[in-house]
């Protein structure tokens, strides 16, 4: 199975490489973000660890993509580099049509603020700000107030996420599920080009987890929000339109929507083969 997948990867790369010279843009490819030949290694010499080993992949616009893989497969590193949180050792990365590799810290920060949304596993919220303060934070960091249009979107989000009565609450007064919903509202509020979710259900009970996943797939289905979610949970990944598998720093499979059983079976087989 690994063999098949890497052959598939080579074919895909070949296709992309053939148009390389024409300066084709990420959006021409229908992608919200992409990386090319990405490598990341830590340490040097004998102790060097390779987290990513020549990864080329794109996150399709308007889709909900799950990035799966066992611990140490490089999935979090891939997400961090794609989101402009970390710099690769080699290769290139784009968000929209902006190449982010080589951008300075300030440019990256502003890019994350305006064009990327984040949902982490835990500690998503600033504990000193109430729910609304957290949702509006990306705007305030940008030194502006939401426009009428953005305000309407936030109101709709708050309504849809059932946070209306909780806006004045501080994070420690909210349940884990409510905290994640506030984080979702914040991530979607700026209508970013891409939302990155890192194990967004990892700390939740199964019911709250399901709610969070339904909200994410709704956002992508209904509003065309591009979402990339890192997870090792087959049930979580089954909500996605597309499932990428990473193993040992490489993309080893790229599947369309699958059931949790199929995903789990694939993971099990990969585990046994390893």
């Amino acid at each position, binding site marked *: 199975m690994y063999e098949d997948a890497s052959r598939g990867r080579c074919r895909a790369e070949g296709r992309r490489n053939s148009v390389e010279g024409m300066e084709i843009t990420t959006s021409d490819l229908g992608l919200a973000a992409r990386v090319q030949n990405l490598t990341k290694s830590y340490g040097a010499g004998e102790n060097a660890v390779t987290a990513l080993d020549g990864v080329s992949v794109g996150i399709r616009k308007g889709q909900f993509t799950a990035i799966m893989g066992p611990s140490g497969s490089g999935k979090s590193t891939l997400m961090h580099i794609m989101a402009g949180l970390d710099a690769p050792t080699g290769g290139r990365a784009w968000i929209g049509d902006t190449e982010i590799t080589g951008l300075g810290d*300030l440019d990256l920060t502003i890019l994350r603020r305006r064009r990327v949304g984040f949902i982490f596993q835990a500690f*998503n919220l600033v*504990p000193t700000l109430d729910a609304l303060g957290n949702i509006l*934070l*990306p705007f305030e960091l940008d030194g502006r107030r939401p426009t009428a249009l953005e305000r309407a979107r936030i109101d709709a989000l708050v309504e849809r996420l059932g946070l209306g009565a909780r806006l004045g609450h501080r994070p*420690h007064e909210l349940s884990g599920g409510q905290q994640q919903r506030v984080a979702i509202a914040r991530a979607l509020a700026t209508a970013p080009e891409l939302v990155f979710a890192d194990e967004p259900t990892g700390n939740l009970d199964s019911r709250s987890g399901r709610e969070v996943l339904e909200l994410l797939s709704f956002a992508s289905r209904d509003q065309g929000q591009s979402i990339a979610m890192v997870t090792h949970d087959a049930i979580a990944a089954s909500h996605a339109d597309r499932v990428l598998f990473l193993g040992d720093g490489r993309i080893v499979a790229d599947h369309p929507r699958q059931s949790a059983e199929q995903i789990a079976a694939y993971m099990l087989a990969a585990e046994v083969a390893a």
Partner: protein
Amino acid sequence: MTAVAVVPESTATGPRLGWLRERGMGASILVAGLSAAFGVVLVEATVYIGDMLQADPYIGDSGTLAVVVAILSVLLIGMAMYVAAIVTANTFSTIIAGRTRRIALKRLIGASARSQRTEVAGQGLVVGAIGAIIGVVAGLVITAAGVWAADHLIAGAPEFSLAQPTILLPALGVALTTWAAAWVGSRRVLTVTPLQALGGSVDRTHEDAAARPTRHVGALLLGILGVALLVFGVLVGLTTPLGVVIAFVGGLLSFTGLSLGAVLVMPPLLRLVGRAFGRSATARLAAENALRYPERSSRMAIGVVMGVTLVTMFAVALESIKALLAQAAGGQLDPQFSIIMDAFAAVMMVLVGISAVIAGVGLVNLLTIGVVQRKRELGLLRAIGLSNGQVRRMILLEALHITITATATGLVLGIAYGWIAAQSLLGSVRMPPSFEQTAGLIVPAVPWIPVAIIVVATAVLTLVAAAAPTRLATRVAPVEALAVE
């Protein structure tokens, strides 16, 4: 040391004194060292002045002046130790907040809460002892230099031996108060449950407000009684200089009330100053950070408030007295008297200023630990778009928030106390030209040099306080901070 031995650090966690490298311990040693050195120098100076007075043929062996100097030293040393104790207790309680997980893990394995607390207090004793030793050495060096200078400057300086057994008193006092302060600051250990080691628990934003109504009522009563006595002292002072005695007691009570009730007084003031910073995201985050642990911030500020209040008080009181006496003398003050007054004021301001320095060390330390403990939150903020410049601004504003609040409060209180002192002492002085009317209510005279020094010192303190945490916070990559467990 025995307390440390009860729950020995395992070889796996490093050397037995490895905890001394923990952030905050160094500053606690510095605080203990400063107050011990201050104590040693004052004790030596008191003995020296006593010897000098005895040698003086005019003052001779009337011991009154020597006793006054001795009482003054005891008061000053006591105050420095009190501020140092507040700072140390605060530091330890903050260090423990950061150790919660480790303590919970030990509790999970089977350590009792009590043994954990004893361990922390034992660390306090070690810190206090190290600080005391360093302080004694530093104090002796400073005294030796001072004696050497005096021998060359003053004709007929007395023979003086540095080996005064009484210098052991401040050293012992510092070691013991640091121990006690660590014990008080470690109260939190008792609230750590083994479950907290298992993770998943959400960070509490606000310290459990540990409502101790009795202490608050006590502080309030002291405050009210103190203010009443201050007013009474001013009124009595209009007819007799003895008003100053009543006002002195009032000042002592109200000041004690203030330091005990800091948690009641400081947060509203902090909030007020926070609002003045505007509505930008960084300003709001900074203002919220300064109020995140109201008790911690209040205690952090109150030491600075005390120092600034006392310095300002001496400055304003003496300036007002000078102004009033000049008026009473028909415009001109005896220049010799004026110089003596100024010198006395300067010496007193430097001496009480030491407490402000100790409080400043505590403030720098606490801000740094606070930022270190917020590493993950900083990572989150950086991820969602807080730039490094905004991080810098946020931390600077956070420091500024506390220093401005503390200094402004101290200046206002100091002017009030200083004015009351002058007013209650000299309100009954008869004034020219007829000498039938008394001075009545006077306007406080505020000397601008000490005020300017205080403002500059505040600015320096703010920059120093912001420097270390800023360096730590901007050096951290967001990914690294997000990975912190």
